[in-house]
């Protein structure tokens, strides 16, 4: 079973040389720490920055320089700043190659719910609806089951949707799964020490298992 860092590590392997990547809040933010050293990647922050760098050194933080999670960050050589309209313009125009975000639920047809729980205070969707509606390559980083022990990989989402037919891949503490174009979670890899049976038990939606499922290498 993977911890959060492990999920982030595994997702980092999906990032290819030359990608522009948008990382959501939570586990996705951790992915930046594990981008392979031999590839070139630019991180987009949807408040209006390409080329997000690491957190500043203590005392060097700049109130005018934050990421979409409102954290103080730095710029790197080659960074560019733009307004929020252009930022979502490049997202809608599919210039961002990969979007990694968290979710509360994903359905077997790729719907995602991650912004609202009825009866609870709703904080807002931020840029998530824009990202999932336009991105061509969306990976969800999340726990396989919620705190109540219920599967988050469903045949149909029960929570209000953020977007439809958009998630391409899911990485959880248990497994890596593709969401197939015709529906269904195709099991690709097991987390170290996790059995196919455990994944079956934790997956409420249609799970597709073909042949031997390898243990992931992270």
């Amino acid at each position, binding site marked *: 079973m993977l911890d959060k860092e492990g999920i982030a590590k595994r997702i980092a392997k999906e990032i290819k040389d030359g990608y522009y990547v948008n990382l959501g809040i939570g586990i996705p933010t951790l992915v930046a720490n594990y981008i392979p050293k031999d590839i070139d990647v630019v991180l987009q922050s949807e408040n209006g920055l390409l080329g997000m760098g690491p957190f500043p050194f203590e005392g060097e933080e700049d109130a005018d320089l934050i990421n979409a999670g409102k954290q103080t960050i730095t*710029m790197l050589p080659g960074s560019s700043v733009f307004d929020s309209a252009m930022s979502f313009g490049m997202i809608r125009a599919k210039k961002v190659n990969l979007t990694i975000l968290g979710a509360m639920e994903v359905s077997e047809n790729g719907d995602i719910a991650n912004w609202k729980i009825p009866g609870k205070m709703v904080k807002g*969707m931020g840029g998530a609806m824009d990202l999932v509606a336009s991105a061509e390559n969306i990976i969800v980083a999340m726990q396989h089951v919620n705190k109540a022990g219920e599967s988050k990989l469903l045949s149909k989402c029960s929570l209000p949707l953020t977007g439809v037919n958009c998630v391409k891949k899911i990485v959880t503490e248990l497994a890596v799964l593709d969401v197939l174009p015709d529906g269904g979670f195709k099991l690709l890899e097991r987390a170290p020490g996790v059995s196919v049976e455990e994944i079956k038990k934790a997956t409420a939606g249609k799970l597709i298992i073909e042949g031997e499922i390898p243990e992931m290498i992270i």
Partner: protein
Amino acid sequence: MVYGQKNTIFTSNQLLNMNKVVSGADEAIKDIKDGMTLMLGGFGLCGIPENCIAALVKKGVKGLTCISNNAGVDDFGIGLMLKTKQVKKMISSYVGENAEFERQLLSGELEVELIPQGTLATRCMAAGYGMPVIFTPAGIGTEIAEGKEVRNFNGKDYLMEMAFDADFAIVKAWKGDSMGNLVFRATARNFNPVMAMAGKITIAEVEELVEPGELDPDHIHTPGIYVHRIFQGKNYEKRIEQKTVRKK
């Protein structure tokens, strides 16, 4: 046809002296009235018009509809106007950092309309670019699409979203000149330029007010034509919402 090859005799100091400078935040906001719709620049607490927010609190104008990506925190930013119950409605994409906001919302004192961040930005831009509507896929298949026109272009569904119609846009820039030209710094740019374009009247507060000619024409983010009033703000706190650092 004559292409104006005769002597063009106007001189520089004749032409460009449209002085939009006001004395400060109080004068800039003096005609903002109860019930008006305001756009307020900034993302989180980054790049917010601190001086104008303070002046609005002081003035006590009420029943405002505020279009702003966030709602500040309890004791800073738009949070200050929420505390004094001056805001009737917030139009935002994310309002998560504010306990008083939550209390007013749950008690029904405050109305909130949550819209996707890109839709928010693009509806501002549409106003500034004279486009009545824009089409975006954000929110298709979700409750955001309810009651809105959905239209398919090239096999993909889009929502029709209207340009905003705000009485005032209030923005914060790094530098500005007396003609209203603005330059922003780093990610404090965020919504400020698109809102600056979108107000019927646009107020800009700047950290440094300079003379025309001091800003490089190629570096100006918001041309002065969009700005009606400008002043040099003071005592900027520039509070950091989430200080994250690494060790040396």
